[in-house]
């Protein structure tokens, strides 16, 4: 029976429709490629020692990267949680949130400038080891780059988990003078344990499917991942069957991992969405005194040294190219505009679908159909493990007869980008939607608040910030995308990443460095702007009735 309370909820059929569309699209594009597979191909795949080596290497590097990222993220997150106030903390945390969406080419440029054989860190390395700094190439380089991406992400999410502990717990820990071990046992480990499986699965998936990093820093064909083999099959051999099989192998491995992670991890939100910060009380935790100050400083300095210099290198190089840009950058601003409008399309699309899916899942939960709810939610995550190239090529094959080129190509890019951003948008939003307190909902039911008013007063205030952040993630992910747009091509109007590649292809180093800087600035600006917009104080006074708001705005 439908209770009147759910009147304005997104109808279930809409959720089901969105699920069908997303999952259908993912599977259909895979099927479009798979339809060209013969049994012989499958047999050949199994017997190919090269491909077995590829799978082995992919697993090795992904596991190593995940282990390093998450293991190092733990002390960093604990140190950050323990030091709620120090100069630059906000900036550091903001940068950590951004790390996920820095376009690979830019990150690579920065990493080479800092860690390369001629990099900023090379003299230091030479002084320490006596040898020349060759560690950026080979497995160590791959792991370094993956740690650069995933350590900040992991630390940020762990920090969030720690900060979600009620303030009272921390105050109590301080009052009781709990030791380090006791805090870990009583407070930290219980929350971390719940996030860890999903976090590890996310990092593993990102490393497992990483492509450009592996190909540039890998050092040679020994470092070939499934994604590289897939790219080769799809683009160079034109071997759609092989590509589909590789995608299937990738899908199977990642999905089984996720199944495992979901079984063992609590359902917690994976992306930093909460504005809540560690309370800035005057009390001190016992474990925050003495030598730990220096230890924490060491960890935080380590994080800053990992994260910031490569970005500074990009800025420095970009500033050198700025004069060039002002004089001849005629295609830079149109490219920026095109990139932004496509990113907006993809971002809004991802957001709408994510909301629909989550609302559907929430409804199923309420009807105590948790299996179906998990399935509904899992549909959105599916795209994380289907390579964008497969999704793009499959869609292209499916839509081909009616695809006229021109704007339809752009629309397809926006669609694929939206799908790629969907898993991240859902991660941000799920907490906000699922955590809606029962008491408030009941109160609203009793008071008969329905329709627009219910949205306006119950849902919207809790949703605006996650919405802003989800949109920021989705937009910036699509801003930095090159693989999909390159697949579909364009009639001479490049997006920013395309422009970057064009400039590189045309020996325009200076211009390329400037474009990279502009891309970075746009990414940061989107984040900053959306944060600002979504944080603006509402017109009504919420502090009296909304305890959460009270704390935030007090």
């Amino acid at each position, binding site marked *: 029976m439908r209770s009147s309370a759910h009147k304005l909820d997104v109808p279930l059929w809409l959720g089901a429709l969105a699920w069908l569309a997303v999952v259908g699209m993912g599977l259909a594009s895979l099927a479009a490629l798979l339809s060209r597979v013969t049994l012989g191909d499958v047999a050949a795949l199994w017997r190919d020692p090269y491909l077995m080596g590829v799978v082995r290497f992919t697993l090795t590097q992904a596991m190593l990267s995940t282990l390093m990222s998450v293991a190092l993220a733990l002390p960093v997150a604990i140190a950050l949680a323990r030091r709620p106030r120090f100069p630059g903390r906000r900036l550091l945390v903001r940068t950590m949130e951004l790390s996920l969406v820095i376009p690979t080419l830019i990150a690579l440029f920065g990493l080479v400038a800092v860690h390369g054989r*001629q990099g900023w860190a090379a003299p230091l390395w030479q002084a320490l080891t006596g040898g020349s700094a060759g560690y950026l190439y080979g497995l160590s380089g791959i792991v370094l780059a993956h740690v650069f991406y995933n350590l900040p992400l992991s630390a940020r999410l762990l920090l969030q988990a720690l900060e979600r502990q009620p303030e009272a717990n921390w105050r109590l820990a301080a009052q009781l003078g709990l030791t380090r071990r006791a805090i870990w046992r009583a407070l930290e480990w219980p929350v971390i344990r719940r996030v860890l499986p999903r976090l590890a699965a996310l990092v593993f998936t990102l490393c497992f499917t990483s492509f450009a990093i592996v190909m540039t820093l890998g*050092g040679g064909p020994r470092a070939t991942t499934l994604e*590289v083999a897939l790219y080769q099959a799809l683009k160079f051999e034109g071997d759609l069957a092989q590509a589909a099989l590789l995608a299937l192998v990738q899908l199977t491995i990642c999905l089984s991992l996720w199944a495992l992670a979901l079984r063992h991890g609590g359902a917690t939100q994976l992306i930093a969405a909460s504005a809540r910060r560690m309370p800035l009380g005057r009390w001190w935790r016992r474990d925050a005194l003495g030598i730990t100050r220096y230890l924490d400083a060491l960890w935080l300095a380590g994080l800053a040294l990992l994260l910031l210099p490569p970005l500074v290198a990009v800025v420095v190089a970009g500033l050198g190219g700025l004069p060039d840009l002002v004089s001849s950058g005629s295609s830079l601003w149109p490219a920026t505009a095109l990139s932004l409008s496509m990113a907006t399309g993809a971002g809004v699309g991802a957001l709408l679908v994510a909301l629909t899916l989550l609302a559907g899942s929430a409804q199923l939960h309420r009807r105590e159909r948790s299996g179906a709810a998990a399935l509904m939610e899992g549909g959105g995550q599916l795209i994380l493990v289907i390579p964008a190239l497969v999704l793009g090529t499959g869609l292209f094959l499916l839509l081909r007869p009616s695809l006229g080129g021109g704007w339809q190509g752009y629309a397809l890019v926006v669609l694929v980008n939206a799908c790629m951003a969907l898993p991240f948008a859902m991660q941000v939003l799920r907490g906000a939607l699922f955590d809606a307190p029962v008491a408030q909902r009941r109160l609203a039911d009793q008071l008969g608040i329905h329709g627009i008013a219910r949205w306006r007063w119950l849902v919207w205030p809790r949703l605006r910030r996650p919405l802003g952040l989800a949109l920021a993630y989705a937009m910036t992910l699509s801003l930095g995308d090159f693989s999909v747009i390159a697949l579909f091509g364009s009639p001479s109007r490049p997006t920013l990443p395309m422009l970057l590649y*064009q400039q590189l*292809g045309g*020996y325009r180093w200076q211009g390329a460095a400037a474009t990279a800087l502009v891309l970075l600035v746009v990414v940061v600006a989107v984040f900053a702007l959306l944060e600002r917009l979504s944080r603006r104080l509402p017109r009504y006074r919420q502090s009296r009735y909304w305890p959460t708001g009270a704390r935030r705005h007090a």
Partner: protein
Amino acid sequence: MSQQAIVGGLALMALLGSAAAQAEDTLTVYTYDAFVSEWGAGPKVKEAFEAQCDCRLRFVALDGAVGILQRLRLEGEDSAADVVLGLDMNLMASARETGLLVPHGIDLAPVSLPVEWRDDTFVPFDWAPFAFVYDTQALADPPTSFEQLIAAPDDLKVIIEDPRTSTPGLGLLLWIKHAYGERADEIWEGLQPHILTVTRGWSEAYFSLFMNGEAPMVLSYATSPVYHMAVENTDRYRAVAFDEGHYLQVEVAAMTRHSEHPGLAREFLEFVLGEQFQRQLPLTNVMYPAVDIGDALPAAFDELIDPEVYSFPPQTVARERRAWIDEWLRASTR
């Protein structure tokens, strides 16, 4: 039209505007993205050709030569392409195999390449030998053959591209195979200690790594120094001539079988061999033009190495490529 505009949104309005204006015939040319960029040859070529043909020229920019072929394959007979511009010699056989291209029927007499060219389907439009480019400030005395490179101390590093994913990478593979035949795997094994890394494409190798000083030598084209000389006014970067001779890269154009404007397509291919088109190439594509343009060739080209060049027939490449790549894989993972 207006319905599409609503669907497409703001980003697409500009495109629709240009689509709506098409009164005359439109010739669609698939090419790679560097060609159509504002500093590439594309904009000038479009202007010049539209002035003579009473038609519109539409470039579709794809991801490299491989991207063009892949797109053609995916689209098959429905392809909008009238002309493909920017395939290379090593893709010719696979492109021909698709059955989507037709003989051009134009006069190739003006073509002047270091090798004889008599293909009825593909029109060459520029060329350059593959070569190692080195930084004179980091390396005074570069090795002048693969064997010298192998014999050099291990800290002499080169950056190469992956033959599985990049055109120059495949070029190097064929180069070594042509020069050493059966001994190719030995050479590859010997080179291993000197290879800093194998990148996905030319951009990463040349820009991200070589220009950052990560290694003193990079696999590129013999013509690459021209850009540094003519535009950046520096002769710091030079190509080194190898005793084994050099493998040749030729970029080609062709017309499609399902073109709605075969006449125009043919006219465009003739235009490609004309001076207006060819004059654009030396400094935009940084390659040698495929016809003799006399004094219009920038002086910087006189400074380049002038090695003996060779190539395999495209059919051989198409037939053997996979086996040779496997051989390379084995030699470099041993």
